[in-house]
């Protein structure tokens, strides 16, 4: 296992074939490895964001105040998707604002400069920014529950060639999540370590967990991934990506990449399935059959 300090670089390394598995969001899974031609399977649905991603305004009370402002965010990230969904909810489009691409490590500093008045970012930055004077969260991912999903994905071919690989991933995952979510000294130590690793502390990390719908119980994850809502979400996500030209410059429509849902239904081109959702390993974990 390799820990990357750069999220995008970790996905690029996976897409280039240097690694067999990576953790990413459902949107990046579709737009980077899948659009890059790497057949990818979501082994585990870890959680979805329920408040961890937020639209923050300086001196503005409601989302409508965002009109005409420069919005600092990591372009083409889940923040961008959240902004699109937020604008959509009040009848605006991206034409009503100006998006300024900003690197995520600089978000907190950037918010303190006078020319930055609107920002979309994720935790732990959100927690720090809302503590600054004048900052108000006007929209967050809790308002679009289940749309920004964290996945553990692996190369479909590698999974097929090594049946134990998926089992091992699922086993390690649920063992770790079990410790992390437990109300024991061991669990507290794990949360403190995770907090420190993401640039905050135990309290900050616990606040993030509170804004996350964590599927600590694999049975819940199975329920989530097999519900029809996942298809609706992925349809929205691919529409957004296609609109931004992120499914490949020659993509004629959002259907160009096939997305397989649990049960075998395919969204888009069934001859070019590159992203697969399945409950195989989570079900094994739920049944204690790993």
């Amino acid at each position, binding site marked *: 296992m390799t820990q990357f300090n750069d999220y995008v670089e970790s996905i690029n390394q996976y897409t280039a074939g240097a690694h067999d598995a990576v953790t990413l969001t459902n949107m990046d899974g579709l737009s980077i490895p899948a659009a*890059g031609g790497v057949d990818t399977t979501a082994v585990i649905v870890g959680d979805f964001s329920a408040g961890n991603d937020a639209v923050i305004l300086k001196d503005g009370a409601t989302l409508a105040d965002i009109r005409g402002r420069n919005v600092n965010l990591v372009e083409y990230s889940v923040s961008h998707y959240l902004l699109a969904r937020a604008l959509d909810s009040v009848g605006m489009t991206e034409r009503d604002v*100006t998006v300024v691409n*900003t690197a995520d490590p*600089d978000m907190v500093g*950037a918010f303190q*400069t006078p020319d930055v008045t609107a920002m979309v970012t994720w935790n732990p930055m959100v927690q720090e920014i809302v503590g600054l004077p004048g900052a108000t969260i006007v929209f967050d991912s809790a308002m679009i529950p289940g749309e920004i999903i964290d996945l553990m994905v692996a190369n479909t071919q590698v999974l097929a060639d090594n049946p134990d690989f998926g089992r091992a991933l699922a086993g390690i995952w649920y063992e770790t999540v079990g410790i992390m979510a437990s109300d024991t000294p061991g669990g507290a130590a794990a949360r403190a370590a995770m907090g420190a690793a993401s640039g905050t502390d135990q309290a900050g990390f616990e606040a993030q967990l509170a804004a996350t719908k964590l599927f600590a119980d694999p049975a819940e994850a199975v329920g989530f991934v097999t519900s029809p809502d996942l298809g609706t979400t992925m349809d929205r996500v691919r529409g957004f990506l296609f609109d931004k030209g*992120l499914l490949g410059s020659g993509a004629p429509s959002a259907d160009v990449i096939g997305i397989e849902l649990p049960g075998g239904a395919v969204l888009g081109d069934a001859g070019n399935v590159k992203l697969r959702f399945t409950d195989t390993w989570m079900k094994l974990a739920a049944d204690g059959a790993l």
Partner: protein
Amino acid sequence: MRWINRQPGPGGRLALGALPFVLLGLAYLAGSALRLAEDPNDKLLPALTSLAAAVDLMAFTPDRRTGEYLLWTDTAASLLRLGAGLGLSAVLALAVGMAAGLLPLARAALAPLVAFVSMVPPLALLPVLFILLGLGETSKIALIVIGVAPILIRDLAMTAQAIPREQIVKAETLSASTWLIGLHVVLPQVAPRLIDGLRLQLGPAFLFLIAAEAISADSGLGYRSFLVRRYLSMDIIFPYVAWITLLAVLMDLGLALIRRRLFPWAELERAR
């Protein structure tokens, strides 16, 4: 004939100069063909056709969202920042460098500071600049100035100091004031050097520009390259790198031309 005495003819010189380029091009094509044969979706070394398609998309097709031609808006944004940064640096260098080179008092006051500042790694200052000056154009231009100006200043001060003492004394015997000596003896000799200094600093200036654009921007050559990095879009990154290189080469040639036009006397010295 000994190898040391063999000269290439005019045609031979051209062929020898082109040879490494041709070899590099062939190596790329071979590598690209190999990778694409293995995986037709490979994005690391795109084929010439995908490169051409990407150039067409970026340079000659209006963007779906904004209706702008991205390559040209990126180029305009970047060149504006680069021009402002280099222009400010040149003015600063001329003023401070001449003063430090010409006046011992100014030299005593300025030289240690400039020497010190020129050793600060500008990229390490970038986070500070963003917080102090905001994420807009100011901080990007400031980064270029901080990176380029101290070196230009030192270079000009040294050039001014290297002017033979006899010339200064001679001007003094002709009753020239400090101001006149600066204007008529020193300036004509350091100005061509300033242009050469700018030519040598084009590379670092582009480096600082791209680093600043990578962190926060809504247009620019560095911005675009780092944005599409998310999608391993080498078909866009390679043409952008080639375009940046071409721009830098053209600016270098342009500055050389300006130097020859404005300061023909400096060429006499060079030919000798």
